[in-house]
């Protein structure tokens, strides 16, 4: 079962930690399209957080098209749809690559090693996702 964990004191703000974990769970197929997430209130109580922090993370995920908020019924994993313009998608990809590659390069990996690692991860993430959609 999908479970969120947050740690105060880290270098990711808590609402970012929530966003990261939900995004990742959706990307790996741990959360499938239509799965329900706990309500803002439930999650805030469970994680001992200000409910506005949880609401803010959910709102961002809805804006990105990862989650769907159905009025009065809760929050669900959304069907994939494009919410960004081509330019914005490219900008976000570049930003993600920039963070990732600077981190990887400071760890002294060679470009080849990084490419291999990326390919492996991509394979893993996309196959577990494919398995999930077969079950549907």
């Amino acid at each position: 079962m999908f479970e969120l964990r947050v740690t105060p004191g880290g270098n990711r703000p808590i609402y970012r930690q929530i966003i990261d974990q939900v995004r990742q769970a959706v990307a790996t197929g741990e959360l499938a399209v239509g799965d329900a997430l706990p309500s803002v209130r439930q999650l805030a109580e469970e994680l001992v957080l200000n409910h506005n922090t949880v609401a803010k993370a959910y709102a961002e995920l809805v804006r990105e098209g990862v989650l769907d908020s159905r009025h009065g019924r809760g929050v669900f994993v959304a069907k994939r749809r494009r919410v960004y313009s081509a330019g914005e998608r490219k900008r976000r990809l570049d930003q993600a690559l920039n963070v990732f590659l600077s981190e990887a390069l400071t760890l002294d990996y060679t470009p080849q090693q990084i490419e291999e690692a990326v390919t492996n991860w991509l394979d893993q993430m996309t196959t577990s996702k494919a398995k999930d959609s077969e079950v549907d």
Partner: protein
Amino acid sequence: MREDRIAIRTRELTRYFGHNAALRSLTLDVPRGQVTALIGHNGAGKTTLIRLLLGLLPPTRGRAELLGCDSRSLTPEVRARVGYLAEGHFLWGWMKARDAARLQRETFPRWDQHLFDSMLKFFGVASNARVGQISRGQRAGVSLAMTLATDPELLVLDDPSMGLDPVARRALVEGLLAFARRDDRTILVCTHLLDDVERLADRIAIVSHGRLLVDSGLSEFRERVCGWTLDAEFGAQQAAQIPGLIDSRQTRERTHLVVADPDLETEAAIQRISGTARREELTLEDAVLAYLRPAAMVGSISDALEDAR
């Protein structure tokens, strides 16, 4: 009349003690329905601010309003809508928990006995326990229960977790969060515990030497304050070139910079000083310390200790 969305409003609020300014021209709005954390050194003026807000101390200049009412002339009706938890959780030791409740019930028209009883249960305090004989954490619980059960619109807390163990601290945070979730309640809390701030706060206000340095949403603050690591010498001359620089700290070979609201110009200035400068993600503590650390402490403590040897 339009409802005032500001629970606490100060304008140029200033207080001197003799020749010493405890608070200097502090202008702050605390919005309704949110949790604002007030952060600063010991002696930064936080307690003075709270005492001015509650009308326990007159300002030297400027003014403060609580729920729309001037702090110097708070009516009993307004006072009854404000809960105040003083530093140290003062309670009379000979009193039983239930007597403490009786005391409050007579003063506060909206007293909620059911809430009081369930808070006692939550903190594991029997209603006939003598306040002087329970643990410090439980005492904090009684004092929080006494305040929350008055059903305040605005809750002001001065360092409520001081001296509490982790269990009592967590219980306190949970109690405050549950209170904050009720409609439109406002909390102003002074604390040094930044992990609790991350759980609790919508906004933070940083006060240093009587001045307000930061007044911002917590997540905006996290996004606006950024760090860089440089492999270069860094002195006053370099510092002058970086717009928005808040703090620089040197370790043996590196310099860590903290900058507010960096833009392309900031980034270019940093790259000119060191082409290999890297962005660094900051913790809340990093960002807050950058504001609070006095200039005299800039530098490396290990160098200082080594020099002293």
